């Protein structure tokens, strides 16, 4: 019944999906936090930049961003992120870059919603101690904000896991590209779809359950 799977690397494809997810998650967490810091900071220009970045990037389809990083950055401008002429590696790295650019806008908003849950008194007390803005933000406010933002960040992570399939548009060999390849060559459409769907359920459902539990565990009781 599963003979048709010979010659297809299903686990390998899902491993690529996981790699895309983890690398993009790490990158967008850093860049998204910086964006959030800019958006709540006292420098008007940085606030404007953060707001503009989020509003523009959120409204462009991820597909456009990823396709642009391959066709625009790689093919036209020759930016390969250190991969040289190896198209496969370059496309993988560019896909991660595109995912980071896109996802960090959502990470920024999730963290901002976390910052909104921190009572004003916390920041006031920190200032009363004589902490500077960066100290207030990174020592007092953000640690509390992150604990409140676990829920929204989980949603972003699940959306990111599903969004990695867009990398199929530039030929990164992850699960959706494998599925496209398989349904074109093999007859067992329902079985193939069931396997791929099962794989994604295995990735997204436990993420939601585990991080949901973690979110409740670490939430600051107020």
């Amino acid at each position, binding site marked *: 019944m599963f003979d048709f799977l010979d010659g297809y690397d299903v686990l390998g494809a899902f491993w690529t999906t996981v790699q895309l997810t983890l690398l993009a998650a790490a990158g967008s967490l850093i860049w998204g936090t910086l964006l959030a810091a800019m958006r709540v*900071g006292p420098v008007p220009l940085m606030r404007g930049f953060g707001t503009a970045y989020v509003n523009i990037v959120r409204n462009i389809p991820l597909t456009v961003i990823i396709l642009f990083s391959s066709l625009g950055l790689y093919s036209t401008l020759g930016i390969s992120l250190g991969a040289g002429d190896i198209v496969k590696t370059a496309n993988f790295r560019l896909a991660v870059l595109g995912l980071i650019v896109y996802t960090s806008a959502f990470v920024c908003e999730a963290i901002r919603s976390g910052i909104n849950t921190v009572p004003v008194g916390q920041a*006031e007390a920190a200032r009363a101690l004589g902490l500077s803005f960066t100290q207030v933000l990174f020592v007092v406010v953000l640690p509390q904000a992150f604990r409140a933002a676990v829920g929204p960040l989980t949603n972003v992570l699940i959306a990111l896991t599903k969004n990695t399939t867009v990398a199929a*548009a530039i030929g990164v060999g992850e699960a959706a590209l494998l599925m496209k390849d398989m349904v074109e060559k093999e007859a067992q459409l329902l079985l193939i779809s069931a396997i791929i769907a099962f794989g994604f359920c295995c990735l997204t459902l436990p993420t939601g359950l585990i991080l949901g539990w973690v979110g409740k565990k670490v939430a600051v009781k107020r």
Partner: protein
Amino acid sequence: MSSLLYDSQGPRAKQRNVLYTVLFIAALAAVLWWLYTALDEKHQLDWVLWKPYLGSTEAYSAYIWPGLQNTLKAAALAMIIALPLGAVLGIARLSDHAWVRVPAGVVVEFFRAIPVLVLMIFGLALYSQYTDVSSDDRPLYAVVTGLVLYNASVLAEIVRAGILALPKGQSEAAMAIGLRKSQGMRLILLPQAVTAMLPAIVSQLVVIVKDTALGGAVLTFPELLAAANTMSGYYGANTIASFTVVAVIYVVINFSLTSFASWLEGRLRRGKKSTGAVLGAQDVADIAGTAATGAGR
């Protein structure tokens, strides 16, 4: 909160801010300069490449408008089909009968856990193997199918959240004047929930418009993004220019939808007639991202 993270600034803080601003401008300028030289080196800023979009309207009538029409057609179809489906699923999830509630719940959680691209690829293969839909129509059918399956489940959760957000007194009052559960749902809860859901539905429309681009990139559906590809081939490899124009169009459409949604949300929140129950963009993001068990809500 954001403005309360720092005090009104004294002379030293002002000086520091000026310093930060200058440093930030320098960094931005460096990035822009690098971008400019990179583009210039590959002759991507030549007027020839930008002329089709800035110097004439031919590109718009020949490529962009037909592509945009397909984008909007797929998005509208998906929304129109997904709304009633989502309403049915959402109400089914609130049923008192487990044999209605549980299957509806399984369907909703399943389709929210799966990427929309996987659903589209499935749709395309389904139509080509089991139906005689002509191969020209198949991409549109597949895109709409994928979008409907995914968005019906998201809308189901929006409907459910919209009904649950209403004050309990509403359904109790309905029962108190002798309405059945179905009557109370139809006459009392749903009309109010629909109002509360409007901003969320508009926000979801943004997601649908963005997802149609998948059809262009993977399923050969001739929408706006696919138009960008065709154009850049026709106008002499002006990839950067074509993508910029298309991205601007997406931003304009989606930004106006987002602004409309938040205007609607603010209006409903301030309104005196409503119960004050509103579902906004953040709720949609939570619903769309959260697979299973309402993690993090």
